[in-house]
């Protein structure tokens, strides 16, 4: 639609008409950007400025009271720091939770999809942990896992004293205990995602497979899992990002990074370096590193999504 064809508008001379058309075309091109501009400006202001400031801080150090450019010195210091190495290692170890969460969520979603007796109650119950604030979950499990806590009291009562361990006070057990709590809390999200996708899957596929004589395992291996592939992908990547950069609350509330840094993670390292040790430049360097790693996974997720979208488009 051009202005010349708009009803009620008088016809213009050819030169004027061309000129207005060019202007109108320009308007049309720029208009979407103008609509987007406030949001873009806000994003740039909130994230862009912070990011640039973070990067600048990460290559500076206070020397004789002045912020001085030191290149990659802070990054080198961070990589040499054994506490950072421990934190990064722990974040990587936490990734073990991801396949565990996917497997548990998948199984539970299948059971719920198969309408086992009381499935609606189970559905709500399974999602409930995900809704609880992490601090609440962390505090409750802190009490449960104390050496003289509820779990050990129970184990002692049923005659399993040798399994009554110092779950949070031992350097060997603290991280696995933390992982258990994270899985317990986060798995509900996966269940809901998988179940939602299964609900929208074509029932005929399952019926046909059953008629063809597929057993339970074959049914889910050949139909359910392929049907869930994109959701599993999404949940896995979100969970990886969670393990790398979203576990601060669990650690802070349950162990504080201890005992002896055995549960230190990069987020807590950032917090301690910045707010307890007054080293904002080192903090910034770690934050940039964490952002890069997390960004990589976000990019991967977007890439996979766009690939699967185009695949679905072709199909």
């Amino acid at each position, binding site marked *: 639609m051009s202005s010349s064809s708009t009803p009620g508008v008088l016809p213009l001379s050819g030169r004027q008409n061309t000129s207005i058309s060019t202007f109108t075309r320009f308007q049309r091109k720029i*208009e979407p950007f103008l609509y987007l501009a406030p949001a873009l400006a806000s994003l740039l202001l909130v994230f862009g400025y912070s990011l640039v400031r973070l990067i600048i801080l990460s290559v500076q150090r206070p020397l004789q009271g002045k912020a001085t450019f030191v290149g990659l010195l802070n990054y080198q210091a961070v990589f040499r720091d054994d506490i950072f190495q421990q934190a990064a290692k722990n974040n990587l170890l936490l990734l073990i939770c991801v396949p565990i969460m996917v497997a548990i969520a998948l199984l539970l979603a299948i059971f719920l999809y198969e309408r086992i007796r009381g499935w609606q109650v189970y559905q709500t119950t399974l999602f409930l942990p995900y809704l609880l604030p992490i601090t609440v979950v962390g505090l409750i499990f802190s009490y449960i896992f104390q050496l003289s806590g509820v779990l050990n009291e129970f184990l002692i009562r049923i005659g399993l004293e040798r399994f009554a361990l110092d779950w949070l006070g031992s350097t060997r057990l603290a991280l696995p205990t933390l992982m258990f709590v994270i899985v317990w809390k986060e798995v509900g999200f996966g269940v809901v995602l998988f179940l939602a996708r299964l609900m929208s899957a074509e029932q005929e596929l399952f019926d046909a497979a059953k008629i063809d004589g597929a057993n339970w395992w074959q049914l889910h291996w050949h139909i359910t899992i392929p049907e869930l592939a994109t959701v599993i992908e999404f949940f896995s990547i979100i969970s990886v990002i969670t393990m790398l950069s979203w576990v601060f609350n669990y650690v802070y509330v349950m162990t504080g990074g201890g*005992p002896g840094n055995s549960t230190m993670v990069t987020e807590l390292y950032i917090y301690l370096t910045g707010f307890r040790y007054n080293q904002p430049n*080192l903090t910034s360097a770690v934050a940039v590193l964490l952002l890069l790693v997390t960004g990589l996974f976000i990019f991967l997720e977007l890439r996979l999504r766009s690939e699967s979208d185009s695949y679905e488009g072709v199909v």
Partner: protein
Amino acid sequence: MKIHIRFLIVIVLLGSLLASCAQPPAAPTEAPAATQAPAATEAPAATQPPAMTEAPAATEAPTATEAPAEKVKLVIWWWGEQEAPGAQKWLDETTAMYTKEHPNIEFETVLQSTDSLIPAFQAAAAAKQGPDIQYFWGGVWTLENVWTGALVPVDDLIPADERAHYINNFERTYDGKLWGVSWYLSGNPMVFNPSLFTQAGLDPANPPKTWDELKAACGKLNAAGVTPIAGGLKDGWFGGWLFSILGRQPLDSEKDFMSASVGTAKFTDPKFAEWWSRLDELKAANCWNKDINSLDYQQGQDLFVQGKAAMIFGNDTFLKGWADTIGWDNMSVMKVPTYASGQLADDYVVTAQGWGITSWSEYPQEAADFLVYMHTPDRVNAWFKYTGVIPADDRLDTSLIEQPTLKQIYDWDTTVAGPNLENFIPSILDEQANFAGTQLLFSGDKTPQELAENAEAVIQKWREQSPDAVKNFEAWAK
């Protein structure tokens, strides 16, 4: 035509957005209050010594009769109710009384949690916006903010004869200036339960005085089925306390630790490392609760209050609260048994919790005047009545201290008080060597020797990472 109108609307909206983001023009009536504030001239007598009139703000201030007082709002971020219950009531009353006397001054007080106290202030300092008066623990907790320029010295704001009344304020001295005002004293006695002592065949009138006596007492208490000493290390803080209480004994001054921090000595030297072995001895003697690593500091202390342990390395600010729960008869205090003979060995660990005035405050003089008001005899006595905690001011009416246990604390505070070492080391050393180290000792992962080596490694790392902080420490250590 429609598209032109839409285009115009979008442009207008964008223009409005940009306009609303623009900096509002500075209001000329909001000039810095220090040059206008009449509050100083209205303050009670104690706030008007000659020194105050020498300060630029006070000399330029119009008198109350010359001009109406400008409205002043003092924002106070504080902590203290956590360890001195009753502090909130006292502060509310004190601010209300001050506002009644100075109608132009109002307050906004924000009680911070233990976890948010430092981060919230650091965020405020980075933005140069936030409280006028900020609560600080002593020593490095205050001075790290001095070194970043977040605080102003109070020497020119509070006269010397007033400052002379403040107890234990040396922790806030740096570069020949005083950077804060002490509020109340927080000391670390060893608290014990006389009934449990008697039950184990120990004499409550003669508690252990030496390390060997302490270990022997642990044996007797264990034999009687009583946990000798309770503690909680999970959140780390108690590890810092243990360092401060035990690490001092072979040393003569807090400067020793400051010197080791800047590299003139090593934390592996026997006099710095011995406390790890001594703590390990207590562990080997089964002196501690088995779940020390899975309990927080507070949960560890609670074991004593619940009568489940005979002793704790306590904090005297909690005594009144505990007495309200278990009664004064069920607790008594003793000094920490000694294992060495340094000049710090037999003293009583005390720090003064206090206040600082921020460098961005528009009302530094008014803030200082209020801090002085907090130290008027009436307020000092009220503080003790409400909290049972000794105020950091020698004008306390000592006849108010009726409880023998608190009399003992006051006596130690005023005769054998020694520095809290945790306040004289970089916080990274506290966290990575003391907090983590004590956890590793009790989990059995590290030996005392390895922990001393870890402390040295941490301090070397700090010196490499924070050259400016090292320089500040060097200047402070002199």
